[in-house]
């Protein structure tokens, strides 16, 4: 093994943490120097992680680094190690790219705020803790990183303390999120009491011998699952995410949705596939898939009723994480591949959407869907970026959301056929339905914010500066590239990551020494490629999109007589009274404004009882959210104790 490479994981983490401390010292004297240090440390971290791409992803190596040189003695891991296999690196790549983009965006986006040295210090600590979490090979280290992550995320959520609801969202996040932290800690204690080790690889090696005989391990699994589930904001913890997202600065919303939830996903994959190796048991599969499917559906319907741009995006964020968790629970190579692909895509397109929302907020000062409108006239470039993100999340070809959702449908459908299982088929239908509702809800946002009439107060709104558009363009280009070349993504990212998950002996041996896994007969094998059937050709879809766009453009150019524009202008004055006329007496005012909230009034009217129940359920009271969380813990523990 290349010994120099071994230092890269710790260097990537240290550059972020060191950057945090240096920024806090330097930025008090000169904000420019602080910005430079922040940019330098995130770039360094990205560089170190990218340098690991070739050995880990292409050559299949697993890089270990023992802190302080404390290597295992006589088959017992006594030191703390960082262990980077393809799964860790996959999430490490997601994290560092998102951190890099978010940092670039912050430079301009945050320039109206004060206390910026604190912002960058907290931001870099958040980034470092998340990277430390995914690269760590030690369970207690994971817990410490989770705690640093939660603290910094809470502090950053409340960063704009005078912003309406910021403190409230932060407090709920901290209080209810502490259930998850407690879950992880109790799980670790119970696990340690049975196996007497905290090293992930050693736990994986010792688990098959002891599992099944011990009810304590079943309880430990339950606590750890709910702990990581909380960090992924799964149902019933999703109100936290909605509250935190809506009030946090947009660059932090990107971090919470794109990076923090991925830590939960990473934790659940590591826990079920490698530590406990029980993902293939029906109970665990139902548990994980069930939580994912419920999160996916409940959150997308909740998003329907939102009037705040970022709160709506937050619910969609959890809905998409629900997709990821759903397929992760299927315990098939295709499901895992689909889950990882969607996790990556979710970071890209959701990040893009949050950044466009931030751009709108930065320029107009509002996120209220009922007040905004017609911004495509003033901010055409942001609108184009938003449309790319909206098309991706709704799963329209040729963007990346389509590619991964296509794999998700295949994975759930295959699982249903293979096991003759109606549950998985129902989940497949649920996934399709959720996608349709996502599209509907994004049509609503597009209409509310970017199309329709431009309110008078926003007539002087300017386009955002290039420094803010550049990070958005990076994400938009990634949206298109990962959507157009799914086969490349599969070859270079997904297949290595999925085979790393399947090949547990390699993970154990890399940390504990060769032959350690074989002595304890750890199961696992090598997966050569993902069994994706009926792969689609994005280039054909792109050609279709291009031709349709051309046709629409030709029709639009040929059929826009000048006199209609006069009619349009003459209607401008009375848009308030004519608001609903296009639905009820449209002949009077053809060009009246259709509010985004009114688009799906029929659907909402028919589902009004469901929406009323859901609205009351998300009461905003900390006690209620805690109750749901404790109920979830009790439920998971009950399932684990009775069936595992």
């Amino acid at each position, binding site marked *: 093994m290349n010994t120099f490479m071994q230092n890269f994981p710790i260097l990537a983490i240290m550059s972020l943490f060191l950057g945090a401390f240096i920024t806090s010292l330097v930025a008090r004297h000169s904000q420019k120097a602080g910005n430079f240090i922040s940019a330098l440390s995130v770039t360094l971290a990205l560089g170190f992680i990218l340098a690991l791409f070739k050995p880990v992803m292409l050559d299949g190596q697993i890089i270990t680094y023992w802190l302080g040189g404390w290597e295992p003695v006589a088959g017992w891991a006594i030191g703390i190690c960082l262990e980077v296999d393809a799964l860790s690196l996959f999430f490490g790549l997601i994290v560092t790219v998102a951190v890099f983009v978010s940092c670039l965006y912050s430079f301009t986006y945050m320039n109206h705020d004060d206390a910026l040295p604190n912002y960058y210090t907290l931001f870099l600590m958040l980034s470092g803790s998340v990277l430390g979490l995914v690269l760590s090979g030690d369970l207690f280290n994971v817990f*410490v990183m989770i*705690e640093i992550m939660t603290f910094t995320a809470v502090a950053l959520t409340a960063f704009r303390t005078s912003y309406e609801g910021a403190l409230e969202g932060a*407090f709920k996040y901290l*209080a209810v999120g502490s259930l998850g932290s407690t879950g992880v800690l*109790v799980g670790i*204690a119970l696990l*340690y009491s049975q196996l007497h080790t905290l090293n992930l690889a050693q736990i994986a090696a010792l688990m098959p011998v002891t599992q099944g005989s011990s009810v304590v391990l079943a309880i430990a699994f339950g606590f750890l699952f709910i702990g990581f589930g909380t960090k992924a904001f799964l149902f019933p913890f999703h109100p936290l995410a909605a509250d935190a997202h809506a009030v946090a600065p947009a660059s932090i919303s990107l971090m919470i949705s794109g990076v923090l939830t991925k830590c939960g996903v990473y934790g659940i994959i590591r826990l079920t596939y490698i530590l406990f190796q029980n993902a293939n048991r029906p109970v665990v599969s139902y548990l994980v898939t069930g939580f994912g499917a419920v999160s996916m559906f409940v959150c997308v319907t909740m998003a329907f009723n939102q009037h705040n741009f970022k709160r709506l995006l937050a619910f969609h964020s959890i809905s998409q994480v629900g997709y990821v968790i759903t397929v992760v629970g299927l315990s098939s190579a295709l499901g895992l591949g689909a889950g990882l692909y969607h996790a990556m895509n979710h970071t890209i397109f959701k990040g893009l959407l949050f950044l466009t929302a931030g751009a709108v907020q930065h320029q107009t000062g509002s996120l209220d869907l009922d007040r905004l409108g017609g911004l495509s006239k003033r901010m055409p470039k942001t609108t184009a970026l938003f449309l790319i993100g909206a098309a991706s999340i709704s799963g329209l070809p040729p963007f990346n959301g389509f590619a991964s959702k296509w794999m998700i449908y295949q994975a759930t459908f295959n699982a249903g056929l293979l096991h003759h299982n109606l549950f998985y088929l129902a989940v497949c239908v649920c996934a399709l339905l959720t996608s349709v509702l996502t599209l509907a809800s994004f049509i609503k946002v597009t209409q509310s914010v970017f199309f329709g009439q431009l309110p008078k107060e926003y007539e002087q709104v300017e386009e955002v500066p290039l420094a803010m558009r550049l990070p958005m363009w990076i994400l938009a280009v990634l949206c298109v590239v990962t959507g157009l070349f799914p086969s490349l993504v599969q070859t270079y990212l997904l297949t290595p990551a999925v085979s790393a998950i399947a090949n547990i002996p390699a993970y154990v041996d890399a940390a504990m020494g060769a032959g350690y896994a074989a002595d304890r007969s750890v199961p696992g094998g090598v997966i050569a490629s993902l069994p994706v059937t009926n792969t689609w050709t994005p280039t054909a879809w792109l050609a279709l999109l291009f031709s349709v766009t051309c046709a629409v453009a030709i029709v639009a150019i040929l059929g826009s007589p000048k006199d209609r524009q006069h009619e349009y202008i003459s209607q401008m004055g009375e848009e308030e009274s004519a608001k609903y006329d296009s639905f009820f007496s449209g002949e009077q005012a053809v060009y009246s404004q259709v509010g985004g909230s009114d688009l799906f009034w029929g659907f909402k009217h028919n589902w009004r009882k469901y929406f009323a129940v859901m609205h009351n359920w998300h009461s*905003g009271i900390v006690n209620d959210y805690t109750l749901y969380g404790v109920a979830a813990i009790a439920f998971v523990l009950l399932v684990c104790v009775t069936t595992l």
Partner: protein
Amino acid sequence: MLMVNYLGCFALIALGFYCMITRHDLIKVVIGMSLVDYGANLLVVSVGFHAGGTAPIFTISELSRASFFVDPIPQALTLTSIVIGACTTAMSLSLCMMLNRQYGTLDTREIRRLRG
């Protein structure tokens, strides 16, 4: 003997949850969070306890096969987790202070501008 510890820590956690669910005062919610935390800490330190073991303070020369001591790792973990718990309490109390200044109340039923 150790059973008392285990029962005690789960009782503490349960009481903390009960406090967080039923009390409408933010300060009491924070007290509940701390109780849960203490329960978890007690569990971690109990896990490493061996009846009759001595404190795990040895030099390499003193260490022999016969030395019998409690597991030092959970103690280190507990220290870390106590520090984290203190930070949680400090942070949530400071948020409570600022919430009180902004909302003029500490009643959870009135601090619910974000809902639905």
